[in-house]
């Protein structure tokens, strides 16, 4: 099966905050999004998730530098003329951000904004575009959509604005939705509504989703495939069930064990130290300073992202893999049984 989106060896650099030169916020990132699949990109703050996502549609401005290739529909988006890219942006690939206020226009009603997208991309007449906008608001679960279409963004709650954003993103039936922390700013009951909505729309429309999040609960609920990022690198990739049942990279295991294990022991197995800022990671394996499995050779050379014990569906960037039975018992759920 060929991938819908294929990111190859992506590197994103910014000028260093101190001194001359550039630092890499994402480094050698390769990942695929197969058709009809939800792929998760998970990691802590500053690991490079957002810069990776923004690079796909060339939304990073200079002095940021982006290298590598982003293949979509037989083309490298990083080399496409701006005009051709615009035809893909918002049409075949749509993006939803954490804070919808930054991407909604405050002086237009939400109906006008969605209708505008429809008119641009489907060349529909005004009337039909408005009708489609109202229909999208209904699809994303906004009650009284015909009235709400006439509301301005500030007249809606955070959850409704996020729905509007998703409605706008989906109005053109994209093949790929990139969602960067789409529920992080929302209350948990509203988050549940949005995640359910994304799942339903994906099933109905057959689109793919690249979901960026720091929340392992959200990953478990929505993703098929998971990429774990640390300090600009993908350090582990596997189908979602394996990430949770048999994490092979010590960082992934650390993340899972540091979740408040609701009923479990009072002490969490925290990862010592903190995520390094770009350019300040140790030589060799970037996780070495915080890793409980570190060996001398970890610091000598950085391990490659490779099949773990020959398993081609499960990749890890580690020369001392976590044994398969490491996770003591399943991570417990927060919901009542």
């Amino acid at each position, binding site marked *: 099966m060929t991938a819908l989106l294929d990111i190859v060896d992506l590197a994103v650099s910014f000028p260093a905050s101190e001194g001359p030169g550039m630092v890499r916020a994402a480094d050698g990132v390769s990942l695929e999004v197969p058709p009809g699949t939800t792929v998760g990109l998970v990691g802590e703050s500053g690991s490079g998730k957002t810069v990776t996502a923004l690079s796909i549609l060339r939304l990073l401005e200079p002095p940021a530098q982006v290298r590598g290739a982003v293949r979509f529909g037989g083309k490298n988006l990083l080399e496409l003329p701006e005009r051709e890219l615009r035809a893909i942006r918002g049409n075949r690939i749509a993006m939803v951000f954490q804070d919808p206020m930054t991407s909604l226009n405050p002086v237009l009603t939400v109906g006008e904004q969605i209708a505008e997208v429809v008119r641009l991309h489907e060349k529909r007449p005004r009337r039909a575009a408005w009708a489609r906008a109202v229909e999208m608001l209904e699809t994303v679960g906004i009650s009284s959509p015909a009235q709400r279409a006439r509301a301005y963004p500030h007249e809606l709650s955070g959850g409704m604005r996020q729905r509007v954003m998703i409605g706008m993103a989906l109005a053109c039936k994209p093949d790929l939705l990139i969602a960067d922390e789409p529920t992080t700013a929302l209350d948990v009951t509203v988050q*549940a509504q949005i995640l359910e909505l994304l799942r339903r729309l994906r099933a109905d429309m057959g689109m793919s989703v690249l979901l960026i999040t720091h929340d392992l609960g959200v990953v478990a609920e929505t993703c098929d495939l998971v990429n774990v990022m640390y300090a600009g690198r993908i350090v582990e990739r596997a189908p979602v069930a394996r990430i949770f049942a048999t994490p092979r990279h010590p960082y992934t295991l650390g993340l899972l064990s540091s979740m408040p294990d609701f009923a479990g022991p009072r*002490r969490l197995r925290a990862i010592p130290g*903190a995520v390094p800022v770009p350019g300040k990671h140790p030589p060799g394996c970037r996780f070495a300073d915080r890793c409980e499995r570190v060996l001398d050779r970890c610091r000598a050379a950085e391990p490659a992202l490779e099949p773990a014990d020959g398993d081609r569906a499960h990749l890890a960037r580690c020369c001392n893999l976590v044994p398969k039975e490491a996770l003591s018992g399943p991570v417990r759920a927060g919901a009542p049984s």
Partner: protein
Amino acid sequence: MSEAPLLEATDVSVRFALRRRAFAAVDGVSLAIAQGETLGLVGESGSGKSTLGRALLRLVPLASGRVRFAEHDVGALDPATLRALRRRMQMVFQDASAALNPRMTVLDLVAEGLDIHQLARGPERAARVRALLAQVGVDEGALPAYPHELSGGQRQRVGIARALAVEPSLLVCDEPTSALDASVRAQVLNLLVDLREQRRLTMLFITHDLGVVRHISDRVAVMYLGRIFEEAPTEALFEAPRHPYTRALLASAPVPDPTQRKAFVAPKGEAASALDPPSGCAFHPRCPDAVERCARERPALVRIGARGAACHLHGAA
């Protein structure tokens, strides 16, 4: 509980005005925390958790009701006594960088309480600060640093050291781990659990994170639009929630286990605004069980034994 609770709030309300309209951010809340106990306070944004926490320390004025801390009527204290009492009631905030003066060094930030209450000076002062930093796991090298030179986790630890410097008996923690990364959040939670045991601290732990609250609390109170909807020992609440809102909240939490994937049964809509709360039970527009009476009549929080719920249908069982 044989001893009287360390902290007791009775029918506390806090009112604010927005666009010249008064509204109750906290509306008739009663709660008690025993010596050495950790009460978790959960709720979604705008439910009034932080305001309640601040009202208990009289950092915002009470519109009505009483707060008793040890033998003191907190609402009635004169300024001097209140200042002295602040030593025993401290607060840790979500955003340590906003709570720490950016022009003060770590040394002075942690020592500030010692200075105000004249607890130590000179070499004794520095020694106390060093000991506190060691206890919260911040390297001594950070003493001359300014807040912006620290990581988020370090800043939060400095905020905790600062609160502990005056040896409080009550710590109100307002989302102390919400701004932290997963790996660092676990470190700070471990620290709080250790400190509580070493110092027999009494805590009110405010958070929207159900995992965190289940991990750290002995008992949990669930807030919605300024009122407590349910209160129960932690395990009882998570294993058998009674109030329809608590059930909805727990059912909405993503489960970190892909083999347990479920269809979310999220309640419809969003919390109404405290500016304009629904009539009767504030949850009735979203409640799957609502009956006609719910829109008319506000249910009282009925406490039976260790549990309580404010619901016409699920109040007593």
